[in-house]
């Protein structure tokens, strides 16, 4: 016969203050892990969710990112004109754009310095982006003019980014004429006209080309073909693949950090859970003796104690999730190790975070409860009954 579930539940309820402290202790540990994971999720999703699968990024073969990629200008122009797979608009112009890119040094409003990506784009870029990139305030820069638009996330964080301000790029002053809005990482960038940027930076060669492909083109085969293209070899990826590849270093660092914190604080939490369950056992030794002597099998006692401990863990997990929930949506900024630029994003409590948090909490309960439950089921009824 099994011991009813309510016995375990009542066990926790009976010792409210101990249960309360243990649950909050476990909850805090779970919240730490969940908080770091929420940071990682916010960062990674910013890139992975906002990269498009129907937009293609062309880089120099062997380049890992647009920072270290570069096409000679002539080759990039040839690529856009001569690759038949690139889609065209209703007037027959290729739907492709050259972009130059550089992480420039900027000063933060709060003091200190950071790197902000600056992007020179051609007009087609806005056609390619469509509703993904909008102007929140002001207007777009005019082609050929020394004007820029700044990403929404830079306002209030980086100096000289408000509408009407002047941004110096090397020796050229650019006027801020608009605020760019985008859900993805572009909201942390400064955009200007390709030719003007290339001129100001003394870099005539674009870093990358972006393009849409003709309907029906097989992306994988096309990428393979471009790798060994006789004239203009290029590394081709979808934008989604490209952006996801730009999150690896920081993402894995945060995951390692979460694992380390989880392991160290997890040990401490298991010790605490064990203590709590041992004291529960001490308080109920006579009860356990009674249960065993009236015929409950040791395995039933073992499971009952384990369930009580798992419940403790579950409650801790729920409290941890509740504690960490308020940080969802809080905006923060951090250095992306892959691009060496600062990117703004919000903490995200995704289902993955909650599932990891609750599983972690259950694991703590399981490990913490195992030894006390074993002790409970090994008690001799006669001895247990004699204790006071």
């Amino acid at each position, binding site marked *: 016969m099994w011991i009813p579930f309510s016995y375990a539940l009542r066990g926790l309820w009976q010792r409210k203050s101990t249960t309360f402290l243990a649950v909050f202790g476990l909850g805090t540990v779970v919240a730490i892990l969940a908080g770091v994971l929420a940071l990682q999720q916010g960062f990674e999703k910013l890139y992975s969710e906002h990269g498009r699968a129907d937009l293609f990024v062309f880089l120099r073969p062997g380049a890992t990112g647009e920072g270290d990629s570069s096409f000679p200008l002539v080759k990039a122009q040839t690529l856009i004109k001569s690759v038949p797979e690139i889609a065209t608009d209703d007037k027959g112009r290729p739907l492709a754009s050259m972009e130059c890119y550089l992480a420039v040094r900027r000063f933060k409003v709060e003091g200190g310095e950071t790197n902000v990506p600056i992007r020179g784009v051609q007009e087609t870029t806005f056609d390619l982006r469509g509703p993904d990139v909008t102007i929140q305030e002001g207007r777009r820069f005019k082609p050929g003019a020394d004007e820029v638009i700044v990403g929404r996330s830079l306002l209030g964080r980086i100096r000289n980014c408000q509408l009407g301000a002047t941004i110096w790029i090397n*020796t050229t002053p650019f006027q801020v004429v608009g605020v760019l809005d985008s859900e993805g990482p572009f909201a942390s960038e400064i955009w200007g006209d390709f030719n003007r940027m290339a001129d100001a930076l003394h870099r005539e060669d674009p870093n990358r080309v972006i393009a849409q492909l003709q309907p029906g083109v097989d992306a994988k085969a096309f990428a393979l073909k471009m790798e060994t293209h006789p004239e203009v070899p290029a590394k081709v990826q979808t934008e989604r693949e490209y952006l996801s590849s730009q999150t690896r270093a920081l993402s894995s660092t945060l995951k390692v950090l979460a694992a380390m914190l989880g392991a160290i604080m997890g040990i401490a939490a298991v010790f605490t859970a064990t203590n709590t369950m041992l004291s529960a056992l001490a308080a109920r030794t006579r009860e356990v003796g009674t249960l065993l002597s009236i015929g409950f099998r040791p395995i039933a006692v073992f499971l009952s104690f384990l369930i009580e401990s798992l419940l403790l863990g579950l409650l801790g997990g729920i409290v941890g999730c509740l504690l960490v929930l308020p940080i969802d949506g809080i905006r923060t900024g951090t250095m992306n190790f892959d691009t060496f630029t600062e990117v703004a994003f919000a903490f995200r409590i995704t289902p993955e975070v909650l599932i990891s948090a609750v599983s972690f909490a259950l694991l703590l309960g399981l490990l913490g409860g195992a030894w006390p439950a074993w002790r409970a089921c090994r008690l001799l009824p006669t001895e247990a009954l004699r204790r006071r």
Partner: protein
Amino acid sequence: MDFLTLTRRNLWRHPLRTTLTCGAIAMAVFLVCTLRSLVTTLDNSAVASRNERLWVQSAVSLFVSLPQSYQAKIEAIDGVDLVCKWQWFGGIYIEPKNFFGQFAVDPEKALSLYPELTVTEGSKEAFLGSRQMVLVGQGLVDRFGWKLGDKVPIMGTIFPHPDGADTPWEFEIAAIYQSSKPNVDNQMFLFHWDYFAETVETASGTAPDVGTYVVRTHPASDQSAIMREIDTMFENGPQRVQATTESEFQAQFVSMYGNVGFFVSAIGGAVLLAILLAALNTMLMSAREQTRDVGILKALGFSDGRLFAYMLGQSFALCLVGGAIGVSLALLLEKGISKAFAAMLPNYAVIPQTIVLAVGITFVIGLLAGILPALRARAILPVTALSDR
């Protein structure tokens, strides 16, 4: 039976519980020490740098280099003693995770610029002797098990080898240095600018630009005036520059890490809260079991104050032992952690202030966990306590 023996016996009434609580406190204190040390190491890399060194870099971007012609122009400035090229190479040794800084420098000038570098094996002459020779830090030798005369292949990612991107650059270890100051990286890999420039020119057809110039000023000169003069000199291009002191130059990289300090403090705070709850829980359990004992002691004539101190003492003892284990763990594992973080954060160290902080924290936790049971022990009437079962 004296006070200490009583405390020890009472704590040892439940050896397992006390050990586990101590263990939990130790883990938390260890974690707090380690997190704190990461922050102090990051901050310390930016302080106490030698003042006569200035760094000249592009004012536009870390990824933009300066013309070679700038060197002679800076040298001509009054008060400038020496100008050395300092070029980030960014190559890969076997695999990307073996990250460390390789720099192409003017070898003789670099040595005179950095008196903090003491050559411990090999010799300066051997390093200066031929173009493929390198001077490496003791930290790298420890990491990779290198010795004098070893050939080190480095894959050029920014600067591909003329024979193709799959061919590594070849270097030979001529000398090993030990850095005498914590703010000077002991994991640098310094090689000859001439070798670098000629190889790059063979590969790309054009002579390379220079990432940064390190400038030494005369001790008597006005540094801020020199920095202003350098900045003004190139104000109209072709590349605008920014001259900074060495500590500012390093602080700039630390500030690029952004909110790391804040995140770590937030995590540390949560860790402490968790452990405070654990210690409190143990103290409450233990106090509840000792209610009768308290009654007996009071009946025997021990004062309320004495019992207050006795209960608080147990909490302190529990937390301090745990804290001591935690701090010892942080110190014991310092070397290992330093090795694990070598690529990202060289010179990881647990500084004395961190230990003081940890001990302080342990005291506070001991106080907070013990105060409630101690107050209860002081207030309870002997007769109530004795009737507790």
